[in-house]
């Protein structure tokens, strides 16, 4: 099924902010078996100059998940989710994510294309704080195998 090119270049705002909690960061760090004290020890994080525990570099995926899924599961986009694999992922951190952050994720469809019989979607999701300052830019490619 062909992907809908009308999605390209558009923003898909997601209204609900992601409120970053201490326990969510600790849970994420535990799940990847990472005991870095800056992820779990609030005093250690403050001694390092942060307002609270900081998130691992890939925690941003949890922040953007709902906003991206809303877009990717939109039937009008035409992505067959049963055969989707993650092609690549990149995070550009403008500053670390810290417990207490209230973050808004806004996905954009940067590109849709056909490559070797696969439909390929490139997403860019801008993560910002309540003042609109950039926190993280997440770039990801999703590949629907054999759908093109």
């Amino acid at each position, binding site marked *: 099924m062909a992907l809908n090119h009308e999605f390209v270049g558009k923003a898909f705002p997601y209204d609900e902010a992601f409120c970053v909690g201490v326990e969510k960061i600790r849970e994420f760090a535990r799940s990847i078996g*990472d005991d870095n004290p800056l992820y779990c020890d609030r005093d250690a994080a403050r001694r390092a100059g*942060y307002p609270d525990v900081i998130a691992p570099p890939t925690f941003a995926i949890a922040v953007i998940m709902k906003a991206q899924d809303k877009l990717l599961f939109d039937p009008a986009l035409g992505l067959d989710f049963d055969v989707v694999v*993650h092609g*690549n992922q990149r995070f550009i951190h403008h500053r670390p994510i810290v417990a207490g952050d209230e973050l808004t994720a806004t996905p954009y469809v940067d590109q849709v294309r056909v490559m070797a019989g696969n439909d390929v979607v490139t997403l860019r999701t801008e993560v910002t704080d309540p003042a609109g300052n950039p926190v993280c830019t997440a770039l990801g490619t999703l590949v629907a195998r054999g759908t093109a």
Partner: protein
Amino acid sequence: MTPAFDDVAVGDELPPLTYHVTRKQLVQYAGAAGDFNSIHWNKRVAVEVGLPDVIAHGMFTMASAGRVVTDWIGDPGKVKEYEVRFTRPVVVADDDAGAQVELTAVVGALNASARTARVDITAKFQGQTVLGKARMLVALD
């Protein structure tokens, strides 16, 4: 302690790291990340879509691989960029041993004006790389 920029050279190897991933951890990660795709915990579904068995989330592998660099710099808040391509799945058997992934990393480039290093990561499962172009850009002291 984050390494000082002046003490780091292109080609420097970071201390290697090996991690084990079990089914239980994949379930933990699914909850932590909010990614409940069945192929990461349900063999029946994984086999139905043509996989040999349950596979780790690509994002789990990315997260775990990054540790070889964040352990070296100490402060993960100094990660400026991190990117990977997902090239091969990490198959996680239903046993206590799970899968073993071996990580190595080498300083690939330095930027003197920004005082940053690009570290290139290699992640191997059963002797084969599972990530391509895995690179982390970090600020050094």
